[in-house]
């Protein structure tokens, strides 16, 4: 029990420290929300007077006083954060008709899409890796094994955004395919290259089958570009684990006892080979959600990564802070779950403190 409380306390400390670091960093960025808004308004052709009036109105709507000192702003922000208030944004790009929009609602609207894409991708990665790795391990040294290893390394060394471009080129626009001026054949027009829905507001109704199909259709390329790149490397890890387990004494004993092969491969080998990948799975979800910044820009997929990228450009501090906190909390919770549940999954591991100081 004490261990759990200790671990939970550490997680909270981590979130607080990360929030502080990012708060300071964000305030140090050149140009603030007011400067940015002034520029935006000036571009839209407002007169100097109108701009000043609008800025004054915007300032009065901000929940933080932009003229206060940074420590003061920090205390105010942390106090409202403790009450679960992420603040509001004054940037017209994020505002709906009624006025300022709360960051919480903005994040809540975007986050599910990113989590959907990245969680689906990570689950697929591990499903493919575990099955593929196990099969490869049983035929160690065969041509299939060697080919798989080479393929895994080759795919694993392609950055996911490069894979994304390649997939867009091949699958998204149905025109003649010419690479370096040589006509290779016909492009496919199977999947959309951008956006999360065809129409932003007037799509099929939520919850219907058409809605689900359209969401999947649009998410196919983003998910595929992450899966293709990462599955091979995880397969290599699974292969190494399985080969190691296959050499263990208890597997040999199980064979000598005459247990059926199927039982040995699923209950003896697979279970023990998958164990070390469990922590990797949870941390990879967190890592991938952080990587959504680039992926969503490539596909113009309106998730939390694109929100973060846009709010850096707009210097929308509260939005940026909010997104950052969401990223951090995701990673912290993923690691926390991995740490707390690992001893349940693998009873051999008991949690202990490090001893002896030299």
């Amino acid at each position, binding site marked *: 029990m004490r261990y759990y409380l200790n671990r939970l306390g550490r997680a909270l*400390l981590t979130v607080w420290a990360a929030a502080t670091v990012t708060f300071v960093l964000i305030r140090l960025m050149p140009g603030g929300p007011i400067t940015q808004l002034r520029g935006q308004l000036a571009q839209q052709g407002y007169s100097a007077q109108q701009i000043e009036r609008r800025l004054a109105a915007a300032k009065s709507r901000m929940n933080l006083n932009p003229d206060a000192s940074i420590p003061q702003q920090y205390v105010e922000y942390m106090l409202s954060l403790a009450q679960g208030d992420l603040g509001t944004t004054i940037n017209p790009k994020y505002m709906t008709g009624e006025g300022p929009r709360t960051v919480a609602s903005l994040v809540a609207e975007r986050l599910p899409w990113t989590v959907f894409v990245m969680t689906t991708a990570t689950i697929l990665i591990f499903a493919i890796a575990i099955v593929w790795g196990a099969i490869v391990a049983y035929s160690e040294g065969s041509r299939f094994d060697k080919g798989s290893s080479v393929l895994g390394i080759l795919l694993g060394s392609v950055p996911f955004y490069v894979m994304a471009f390649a997939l867009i080129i091949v699958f998204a626009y149905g025109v003649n395919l010419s690479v370096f001026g040589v006509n290779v054949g016909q492009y496919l027009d199977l999947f959309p290259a951008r956006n999360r829905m065809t129409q932003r507001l007037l799509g099929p109704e939520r919850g219907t089958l058409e809605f689900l199909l359209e969401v999947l259709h649009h998410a196919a390329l983003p998910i595929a570009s992450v899966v293709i790149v990462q599955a091979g490397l995880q397969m290599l890890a699974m292969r190494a684990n399985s080969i190691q387990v296959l050499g263990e004494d208890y597997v040999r004993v199980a064979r000598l006892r005459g247990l059926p092969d199927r039982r040995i491969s699923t209950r003896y080998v697979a279970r023990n080979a998958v164990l070390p990948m469990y922590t990797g799975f949870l941390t990879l979800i967190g890592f991938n959600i952080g990587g959504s910044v680039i992926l969503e820009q490539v596909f113009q997929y309106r998730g939390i990564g694109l929100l973060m990228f846009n709010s850096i450009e707009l210097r929308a501090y509260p939005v940026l802070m909010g997104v950052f906190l969401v990223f951090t909390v995701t990673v912290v919770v993923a690691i926390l779950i991995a740490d707390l549940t690992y001893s349940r999954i693998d009873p051999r591991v008991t949690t202990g403190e490090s001893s002896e100081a030299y």
Partner: protein
Amino acid sequence: MKRTESDGGTGDAFTFDVESTVEVTTRERVVDFYEEFIYKPGLVALDDKRTAIGGGILVVYLLMATVGAWLYPEPTTNQVARGIQPFQTMDAPLGSTPSGVDILAQTIHATPDMFILVTSGAVFATGLAVLTGTVSGYKGGRVDAVITTLSDIAMSIPGLPLVMVLAVTLNPKHPAVVGVVLTINYWSGLGRAIRSQVLTLREEAYTEASRAMGLSTRRILAKDIIPNLMPYVLVNFAFAARYCIFSAVGLYFLGVLPTNLANWGLQIQDAYDRSVLVGTGPKYQILVPMITVAVFSLALVLLAQGLDRVFNPRVRTRMAGESESIDGEDESVTQAGGI
């Protein structure tokens, strides 16, 4: 009088100082160094296909960064005709952009800065990881708790978003600084892995012997612990370098890093902004930097996979044909080494 002097250790009394009595000439030392650090690893490296290919590709990139960048003209607008297709003229072998920039020139002149960026990032990340990992693993106790908490925090702040904010804030211009910014929290995960290795190393008999002799912690770390970690660290050096390229090109593509450097990421961004992906757009503009990045990172992955063997002392001596006892056991390897 004499006695007190020798007590101070200046006489010929026994000391722990390791001073070899055999004279070693500089030449012998150079030959020795060549044998140990160039010839033998080279043998193993060339024997393993992965290191051979990876190293070969890396050499090509290095040549591109040095000789290529020196010989080949710099990219400027309108240096050739606009929108040339690749493999048409020798003026622009890989084609040109709609503003008349030679794509090959862009690609070549991006390599020197990329090398600086990648090296500085990887050195920073692995160096810091070794420092924190060994100290916290070996010292344990309170030092360990502090370092572990710090690396916990660094690990939980998502890398790419943090780097994006940092890049906008600091606006780093020099490629070496960009490299350090990119790996600002990469050290934490690696440091944690090194720490757990040190936890077992510190219980080894030879480490305990050094401790019993009263050697300083710094000396034990430098002489007993770190040499054992070297293979692992160097393999991860290659992985850190790959991470650097991934995020550097990605962030240049997003446009959050300053655009003063010629860069593959900027080439991709430029092509993407001209929407070359749509319809019959000139795909080669985005394909060239894409392939360049992918091949570079492939070389590093291959190196990382093969380096493992290079640092295995058993494989190394066997290949150099020095250890006869193992020679007979594994003929295939000896034969391969002989070629």
